[in-house]
């Protein structure tokens, strides 16, 4: 587990060194979320109905934008290959990096989402579910996104290619994430959605780091 420890603390310190990046992700999230009312009109009923879905799509896009920072700079300055040659298994330190990445992108999005929910006039219990769904969903986005980011290391077409690879994999997370908040807003129970998200998180947390590891080995080959 020591691999997870040094990778987590290393990446967290790096994230603290220039918080601008995390701020940008948050700013993007708020900006895109406030574009929708300008586009679809400010009718409260409509906004409340589309609120959960819109906020989830914006959170998903914001999380996606944070992905390149995971491996790109380490790949460029050679620290990624040093990590690959470290004493710890690749899946361990990769998990540490993804956890640190989630802490600086996914978690802030989750904490900010109730505010945006208010902007869309969501009822209080829907805000809670929205937050819970994002809390369980954003780590899965970081995990799946990390696999795609590792696959596109050193590839032409950068951001667009990463979007083409990652967004289709995000579909189930979006469906159950947005579905949870909508269910609460409609007075139904959101527990099936949340439990599926939780199951997805557990499975992803255990299996995806190995896929990321082999993607990194391919990138360093």
């Amino acid at each position: 587990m020591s691999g997870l420890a040094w990778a987590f603390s290393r990446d967290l310190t790096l994230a603290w060194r220039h918080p601008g990046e995390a701020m940008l992700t948050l700013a993007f999230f708020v900006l895109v979320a406030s574009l929708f009312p300008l586009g679809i009109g400010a009718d409260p009923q409509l906004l409340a109905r589309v609120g959960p879905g819109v906020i989830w799509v914006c959170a998903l896009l914001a999380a996606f934008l944070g992905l390149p920072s995971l491996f790109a700079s380490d790949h460029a300055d050679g620290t990624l290959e040093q990590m690959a040659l470290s004493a710890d298994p690749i899946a361990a330190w990769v998990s540490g990096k993804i956890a640190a990445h989630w802490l600086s992108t996914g978690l802030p999005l989750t904490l900010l989402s109730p505010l945006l929910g208010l902007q869309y006039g969501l009822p209080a219990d829907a805000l809670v579910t929205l937050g819970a769904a994002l809390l369980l969903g954003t780590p899965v986005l970081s995990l799946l996104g990390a696999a795609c980011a590792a696959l596109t290391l050193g590839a032409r077409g950068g951001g667009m290619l990463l979007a083409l690879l990652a967004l289709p994999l995000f579909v189930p997370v979006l469906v159950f994430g947005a579905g949870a908040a909508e269910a609460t807003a409609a007075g139904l129970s959101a527990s099936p959605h949340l439990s599926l998200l939780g199951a997805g998180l557990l499975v992803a947390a255990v299996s995806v780091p190995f896929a990321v590891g082999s993607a990194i080995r391919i990138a360093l080959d």
Partner: protein
Amino acid sequence: MNEARLAVRSLAATRGPATLFRELSFELAAGEIAAVRGPNGSGKTTLLRCVAGLTRPDHGEIQRSGALLFSGHLPGIKDDFNAEENLCVALRMRGLQPGEAAIHGALARVGLESRRRVPARRLSAGQRRRITLARLALDDAKLWILDEPLAALDADGEAVLGQLLARHLESGGLALVATHHDLPLARAAREIRLQP
């Protein structure tokens, strides 16, 4: 303590359609150093990366005993970290927990003592290379794989590298070095020549 050893048997690697080298075999026993020489593009870096286990060769087998330290073209240094932090992270990655004194001693030895708090971004290429030298002073890996270690080093930088290499070999370590320069070592190194 079993003897550190490196055995490479009929190694082959290609870059795209072109074959870099074929049927390459050599062995390094404890205390031995091999210099890999050859013109640019002859596959020196690929050979080193194969031995380090980063690149998968098309054919052939590599047997290593013990941990290895790889220093490639890329510096392996974060610009946002200062010299001390870079050194700490590099050693922690290798499962080593050096004390404050050891870190300072190593940085002093390579002449970075005064600049250990400066972010690596503001260090010169030569100074950044010295962070790797400090790692060589502290790391206990038995096999060193160095790609052009003399690049960007000035005269006394080379002297420090020579001392570190000598001490490493005396303590039964192995070294595989790709370089165009003469190695700052008293004894001659075995030569592995790669044709273009």
